[in-house]
C-alpha cells in the first residue's frame, strides 16, 4: 500500500442562501488517495462534484461554508486553516486546482511568463525572474509544450494550447494533489486527447503525486483514472476501480449512469440507452432515507424511512443501498 496523499474524513460543507437556508452540497464524504493514484468523480449536473472539489482545497468563501470533517494532505490537516493561510501555504504547492474554463482565466494583457512568476512569487517572493524563466522553460519542454509560448499573450494561443498552458502553470510547484474539474469538456476531441496525455505525463514523471478528475463523461473517466466514485445529491453512492464501476456497477444509480454511456464501437448501437427518470432531489430539504429512492426502480418502503449507511463489500468497493449485492445482481440479470 502506497503512502496516503489525501485523506478526507466525513467532510460536510454547505451553501447558505440569501434567505439563510442551509444547503448541504457535500454530505459526509470520505475518501482516500494513495501516491501515484488517480480518482475520478462522476455524477449528474448538480450532484456536488464541483463543490467537493472546491471544499477539498480548504479555501472557502461565501456562500460556501465549512461545517465539519477533516482534510488531511500528506499528514497535515488543513480543515481548520484560515483562507489567507491556505492561499499562501497550501494552494499551488500542496494542492492545485484546474477549473473547467481554466483557459479563460488568463489575463489577455499579460504574457504567459507573468502568470508563472505570480504562482511562484506567492510562495517564494525571493526567486529571481531568470530562475523562474529557466524553471518554466524546462518544465514546458518536458511536457511537450513549445517554450516560446511563455513570451506570448493568451489571445495568440488556441483553446487546447491555452488549457495545456494553464495546467503546466498550475502544476509548476509539483503539488501533491491535482484537482481537475472538467478540464477538457470545452475542447474538441483532439485537443482533449492532448490534455489527457499531458496529465498522464505529469503523473508518470512525478510532477504531481495524485489526482482527482471530475467529469460526467464516463468513457473519459474510465480511460484516465484508477478508481471511480459516483456522487448523488451530495453523497457518495458507490466507489470502486474504474473497470469494476463501468462493467459491474452495484448501486442502481451507478447502473443507470453506466447505461447512458455512448461510444463509437461496434455492437454498441443495438444496446438501448437507459435514461433514469425524474430529477435529483432539492438539497434544501433532502428526502428521508435513501436520496435516490424516488427515482429507483427497486425502492422498497424501508428505503424512504431509514438512512442507508455506506457498506463495504469487497476490498476498496463500497456502496450505499439497502439491498444486498446478491439481490441487486439478481434483479439486474432479470431485467436484461
Amino acid at each position, binding site marked *: 500500500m502506497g503512502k496516503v496523499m489525501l485523506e478526507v474524513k466525513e467532510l460536510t460543507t454547505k451553501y447558505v442562501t440569501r434567505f439563510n437556508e442551509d444547503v448541504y452540497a457535500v454530505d459526509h464524504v470520505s475518501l482516500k488517495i494513495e501516491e501515484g493514484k488517480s480518482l475520478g468523480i462522476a455524477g*449528474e*449536473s448538480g450532484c456536488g462534484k464541483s463543490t467537493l472539489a472546491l471544499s477539498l482545497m480548504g479555501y472557502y468563501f461565501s456562500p460556501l461554508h465549512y461545517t465539519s470533517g477533516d482534510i488531511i494532505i500528506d499528514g497535515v490537516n488543513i480543515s481548520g486553516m484560515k483562507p489567507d493561510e491556505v492561499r499562501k501555504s497550501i494552494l499551488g504547492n500542496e494542492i492545485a486546482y484546474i477549473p473547467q474554463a481554466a483557459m479563460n482565466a488568463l489575463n489577455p494583457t499579460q504574457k504567459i511568463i507573468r502568470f508563472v512568476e505570480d504562482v511562484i512569487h506567492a510562495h517564494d517572493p525571493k526567486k529571481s525572474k531568470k530562475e523562474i524563466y529557466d524553471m518554466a522553460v524546462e518544465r514546458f519542454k518536458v511536457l511537450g509544450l513549445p517554450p516560446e509560448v511563455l513570451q506570448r499573450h493568451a489571445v495568440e494561443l488556441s483553446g487546447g494550447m491555452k488549457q495545456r498552458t494553464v495546467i503546466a502553470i498550475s502544476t509548476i510547484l509539483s503539488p501533491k494533489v491535482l484537482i481537475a474539474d472538467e478540464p477538457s469538456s470545452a475542447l474538441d*476531441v483532439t485537443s482533449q*486527447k492532448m490534455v489527457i496525455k499531458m496529465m498522464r505525463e505529469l503523473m508518470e514523471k512525478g510532477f504531481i503525486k495524485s489526482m482527482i478528475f471530475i467529469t460526467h463523461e464516463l468513457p473519459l473517466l474510465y480511460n484516465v483514472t484508477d478508481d471511480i466514485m459516483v456522487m448523488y445529491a451530495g453523497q457518495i453512492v458507490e466507489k470502486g476501480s474504474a473497470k469494476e464501476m463501468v462493467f459491474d456497477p452495484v448501486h442502481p444509480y451507478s447502473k443507470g449512469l453506466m447505461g447512458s*454511456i455512448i*461510444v*463509437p*464501437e461496434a455492437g454498441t448501437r443495438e444496446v438501448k440507452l437507459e435514461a*433514469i427518470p425524474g430529477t435529483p432531489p432539492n438539497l434544501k430539504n433532502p428526502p428521508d432515507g435513501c436520496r435516490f429512492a424516488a427515482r429507483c426502480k427497486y425502492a422498497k418502503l424501508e428505503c424512504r424511512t431509514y438512512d442507508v449507511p455506506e457498506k463495504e463489500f469487497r476490498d476498496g468497493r463500497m456502496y450505499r443501498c439497502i439491498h444486498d449485492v446478491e439481490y441487486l445482481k439478481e434483479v439486474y440479470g432479470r431485467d436484461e
Partner: protein
Amino acid sequence: MSEKMSENKVTIKKGDSVLKGVGITRVFGYGKSRNVAVDKVDFDFHAGEVISIVGESGSGKTTIAKMILGLIGVTEGEMYYNGQPRDISSHKKKKEYWQGIQAVFQDPFSSFNIFNKIDDLLIDCINLMGMKHKSQEEKVEMMTEACSFVNLKYAELTNKYPFELSGGQMQRLMIARIFLMKPKILIADEPTSMVDACSRATILDMLLKLRDEIDMTIIFITHDIGLAYYVSDTVYIMEHGKFVESGSAESVIITPQAAYTKRLISDVPKIHEEWDLSTV
C-alpha cells in the same frame, strides 16, 4: 388560412427525398479575407431518416445548418425541398418553409425570449402553425399534451419565465415546441453538448420517439461521434467545408476509409478497446 396551406402541401412518404442539395457553396468575405466555409457539397436527405453531420469546430457544420434553415443565403448551388426547387425569396414563403423545417440549438437559454412566459412561447408555435383562431381551451389542451410528451407538467410551467427552469427542462421544452410544430425536418445543432450523459439519453429518446411518430427527418449537427453512431442511419463526415466520407453509420464509423475519419474516431475515448494516447 390553415386550410389553404394544407392544400398546397405535397404528401411525402417515408423514404422520399425531402431535402436535396447540389453543389452547395458558401463563401464569407472577399478579396484577401475570402473564406470558403462550405465547398460544393451534395446531399440527399430522405423522409424519416436520421442524419448526422460530424466534424470538428470550424469545419462548416453550422454554416450548412443555417443554409438549410434559410437563415443565411447560399452563394452557389441549388436546394430542393420536397422535390421542387426551394423558394424562400419572400417573407411569406419563408414562413411557409419554416412550418416544415425547425431547429433545436445547443444553448436552450439563448433560444427563448427571456421576457416571455413559457405559455407565450408555446402559444407562438401554435400561432405559427396557422391555428391562431383556436380557442384558449384548445390551445391549453395542445400545450398540456406537448408538455406531457416530454415528461413536463404544464400546470407547473404555466406563468413561469425561462430562467426559472433548469437546463434539462429547457431542452425538453424545446422538444415540446417541436412536438407542437410537427415539422418535416428537424435540425438539431449540438442538442446535447450542454447537458450531462443522463439527460442526453432522455433527450435522444424523445427525439427518436418523435421521429417514429411523425416520420420526421432529423439532422444532427455534432462533434460527438458516439452520439452520431448511436442515433443515425446516415453519417456525413465534414472537414474544411467538404464531406470527406458519407454512408451508413455502421460503415463510416466502424470501418472508416478516409484518414480524417480514422483520426477523429481514434481520438474518442472508448471502453472496450484500448485508447491509444501515443497518436497525438
